[in-house]
């Protein structure tokens, strides 16, 4: 056990730190609070810049434009991005989840076709997994694809698709064989979002914005060569994407959490309660310290998981504790923010008295989604119970 950076890691960090110092756009603060639709071209440009420096997908193999970064280097990458207050990247699903899945399962032609444009943010990717009747029980999904000559014809509906409104391509899970057990008849298709018959509708969520979309497919023709992996092996392909999701997402979130707790401590110094600053109130101090500690433990759990994955080669079901930890912690942090802000906590963006332009009222609402998206807390606990602890399957 040695948490000091080794020579290679130090070199990686120094090079990245220097690059970020020279390249992080100085006007990001002005853009940060704008709606995603408005800021999107900005984020695209930022990703292109990162890609030009070969920093867009450090985890990817060198031959695909990455740096074959170890998991620890990836952790360093997100830490440095946080330290430099760098913007996020436009094609986050393509870089984090779908690209790695294509690299793992794709044909040579598919890799050549898709990978470069994922990196450059020329083509934004979205994910068509959940359906109205297939959420936690993803394998029961009903969107079907029928072979017709050299094309699949897709019919059905997807929901909770992030980046659907801006997506050029979609990793779509469909049923190609309805006559076998549910996990065995699925296939992953790479679908051009400009194909005829796709209808993208915004899905308004409880925050008031539309981060996600519903996708409707009516007789959408997808070339058979766009099957990712083997026909009817889509469950394994999809699960591999989900593993990347649970394993790596938390590392990025540390950036956000760290900023939140730092800001909350700042706020506590300025908020007056009973004639003294909240930062000197024993109860507030207890709560802030609890958040601070748990955010640090989240980082440490992540680092330990990285060491374990490095030893075993693949993200395992233990990744589920990371998902549970960050999602539930984020809700607790937002609750502490609400208690600190009192009545002001309910003011939304646009109200002139809203603290941090409504960041905290938004966060309070948005984090309700954290324990649902990317596998509900209940599903994560099932995964730990069955796959980690070896308890009998409960469903």
């Amino acid at each position: 056990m040695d948490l000091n950076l080794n020579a290679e890691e130090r070199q990686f960090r120094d090079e990245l730190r220097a690059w970020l110092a020279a390249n992080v756009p100085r006007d990001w603060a002005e853009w940060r609070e704008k709606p995603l639709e408005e800021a999107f071209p900005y984020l695209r440009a930022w990703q292109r810049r990162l890609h030009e420096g070969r920093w867009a997908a450090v985890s990817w193999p060198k031959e695909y434009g990455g740096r074959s970064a170890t998991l620890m280097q990836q952790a360093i990458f997100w830490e440095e991005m946080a330290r430099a207050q760098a913007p996020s990247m436009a094609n986050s699903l393509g870089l984090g989840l779908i690209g790695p899945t294509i690299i793992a399962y794709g044909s040579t032609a598919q890799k050549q076709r898709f990978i470069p444009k994922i990196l450059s943010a020329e083509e934004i990717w979205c994910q068509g997994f959940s359906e109205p009747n297939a959420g936690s029980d993803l394998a029961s999904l009903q969107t079907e694809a029928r072979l017709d000559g050299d094309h699949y014809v897709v019919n059905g509906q997807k929901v909770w698709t992030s980046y659907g409104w801006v997506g050029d391509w979609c990793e779509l899970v469909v049923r190609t064989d309805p006559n076998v057990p549910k996990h065995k008849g699925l296939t992953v298709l790479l679908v051009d979002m400009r194909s005829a018959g796709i209808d993208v509708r915004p899905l308004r969520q409880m925050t008031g914005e539309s981060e996600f979309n519903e996708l409707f497919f009516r007789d959408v023709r997808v070339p058979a060569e766009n099957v990712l992996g083997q026909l009817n092996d889509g469950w394994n392909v999809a699960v591999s994407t989900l593993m990347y999701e649970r394993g790596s997402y938390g590392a990025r979130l540390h950036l956000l959490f760290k900023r939140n707790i730092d800001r909350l401590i700042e706020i506590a110094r300025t908020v007056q309660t009973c004639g003294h600053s909240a930062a000197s109130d024993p109860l507030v101090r207890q709560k802030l310290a609890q958040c601070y500690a748990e955010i640090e433990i989240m980082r440490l759990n992540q680092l330990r998981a990285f060491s374990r994955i490095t030893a075993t080669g693949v993200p395992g079901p233990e990744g589920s504790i990371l998902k549970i930890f960050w999602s539930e912690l984020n809700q607790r942090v937002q609750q502490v923010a609400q208690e600190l802000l009192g009545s002001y906590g309910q003011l939304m963006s646009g109200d002139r008295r809203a603290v941090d332009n409504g960041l905290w009222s938004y966060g309070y609402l948005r984090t309700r989604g954290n324990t649902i998206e990317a596998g509900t807390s209940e599903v994560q606990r099932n995964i730990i119970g069955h796959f980690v602890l070896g308890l009998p399957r409960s469903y």
Partner: protein
Amino acid sequence: MEFGLSESQRLLKDNARKFFENECPMEEVRRLMETDTAYDEALWAKMAEQGYTGIIFPEEYGGVGLGKVELILLMEEAGRALLPGPLFSTVAFAGSALDAIATPDQKKRYLTRICSGEARSTLAILEDGASWNLTDIRMASANGKLTGEKLFVPDAMVADFMIVVARDGVFAVDAKAAGIDIQPMEAMDRTRKLYSVRFSSTPAEKLGNAAGLARPFDVAAAAVVAEMVGGMQRTLDITVEYAKMRKQFGKPIGMFQAVQHQCADMYLETESARSAVYYAAWALEENTPDAAVAVSIAKMYASDAGRTVGGRGIQIHGGMGFTWENDLHLYYKRAKASETAFGDSTWHRERIARLVIDAGTASMQSA
């Protein structure tokens, strides 16, 4: 950067587990807890032979010279075995205090005997206010003699000498010195006995200043957390086995999500406490700027998680978990003793607040 254990660390941990399984199985724990001192001379000699009593101390005093991470791994396994007796008090507590503040001559006289297994020791801090803030200590020496009472002193009855913290310094006191009166305190955890120790003009040798205790205090706190992690892991293991085997409504109860999700939470809490204490041990070893915060984070988290995991384990066992016969209550009681030792979660949250909020540097140690 590598958060996994090295080959030699893994070996040490595996060996410690086997050692405690062979030398101190639960029957032995139960036998010892019914004795006055929960101490076994033969077991102590075997631990000394393994090098456990000198694990972190310099070789010039007969120690093994390993680091804090190794200490934490040993303590984790000791906690898993619910090891009774004064290994913790002697090594993590008194020994690390001696190592930090005593003169070379004093180390030769005291630490050497700890390393060799000849002497057992303990540390006396708390007084009737039961405060872990060293500034609350009232006892003071007069003409090289101590007078007053210390409470909650672990394993005092088997200690050959004690390290006593007074307002004006840290002292070594021979257990057979004049004016010492040691009385048992009837506490929940019978595997680690607590005592009140009254001093009446008892001769004492000054080792150093109380300010020098900051680091050994943190080493001891981290060691307690490591023991707690071992106890949590054992509680989880016992509980998962039970949930697989116990049937109700014709099914193993572990099949029900109400049970399964509690097990998942026990796993999450155990692993999180482990991450925190491994990091704290490493930070102490490397003397990183955030070492004290790291210890507080670990102790804060484990103090709550240890109790919660124990409670979940008992709940899942149903009526069986409430019996004396089942081992879970033994771990549950140890967890309570450990929860308050070296500051409970409330105490450590306040310490984090002092170190983080008041220091004005909210930014965290990072990679």
